[in-house]
């Protein structure tokens, strides 16, 4: 990834409101289509972006009630990688302390949720989370081919 140029950078700011993750997923789709990613991969990116936005909307408690997305197309000459950053200016969390969900435990647990990050990691190639007092950034990449 290092050494690759940013061929395109698109920024999207969404209000923390119902269904706004859909707007994010459409922009993700547009960017992935522009770099002619395969339809299945595009769909995976779309779902990962939806999950990241929902997390920001649901958990961040950001005062500005906004989600900031950046879509970057990276490559040496031709598009090779799509990098998406989903950022909020919320309270942050400690990713290392989030319990890894398992279906066996969830089946009997009261709280069935807690799958978002696992799904994002499963669908994208690389995922990095930076979180602290200034909020949370989740940076995820997917190769074109």
């Amino acid at each position, binding site marked *: 990834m290092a050494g690759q140029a940013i061929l395109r950078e698109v920024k999207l700011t969404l209000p923390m409101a119902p269904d706004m993750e859909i707007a994010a997923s459409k922009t993700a789709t547009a960017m992935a289509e522009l770099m002619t990613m395969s339809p299945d991969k595009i769909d995976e990116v779309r779902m990962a972006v939806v999950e990241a936005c929902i997390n920001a909307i649901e958990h961040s408690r950001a005062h500005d009630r906004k989600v900031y997305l950046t879509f970057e197309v990276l490559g040496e000459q031709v598009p090779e990688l799509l990098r998406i950053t989903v950022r909020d200016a919320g309270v942050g969390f400690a990713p290392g302390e989030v319990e890894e969900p398992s279906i066996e435990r969830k089946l009997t647990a009261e709280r*069935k949720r807690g799958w978002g990050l696992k799904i994002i990691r499963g669908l994208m190639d690389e995922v990095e989370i930076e979180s602290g007092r200034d909020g949370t950034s989740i940076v995820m990449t997917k190769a074109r081919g």
Partner: protein
Amino acid sequence: MTESLRLRVDRRDSLAVIYTEGYINNQGGEEIASAAYKLIADGDKVLLLNLDGTKIVNSIGISILIEIIEKMLEIDGRLAFCCLTPTIEKTFHIMGLAQYAGIYPDEPAALEALAAGGTPTAGSAG
């Protein structure tokens, strides 16, 4: 602001099929669950969720489907899915859902497997 999930329920002799159309989010999941609980209350023990009309889900929506699986385990019933997009199927595998609910490419395949009693729900594969 968007239109909510649309559901259609088709009760057959030995099972009920729930057809979905639209986004399975929080609300969509709740709607599926209440349709499922109603069928269970009416005596159905085998449910097939045909997601052909659903191109997008989120993890909150799927979590609610886990509740239905839990219910099925309690009553010794079976839940199966068919017609998933590749991404939704992949997501179900990431979550391990595939161990507790049959996943079939299309409805005929699902019906055949369910008629043969082939779908694990009650932890047989768990």
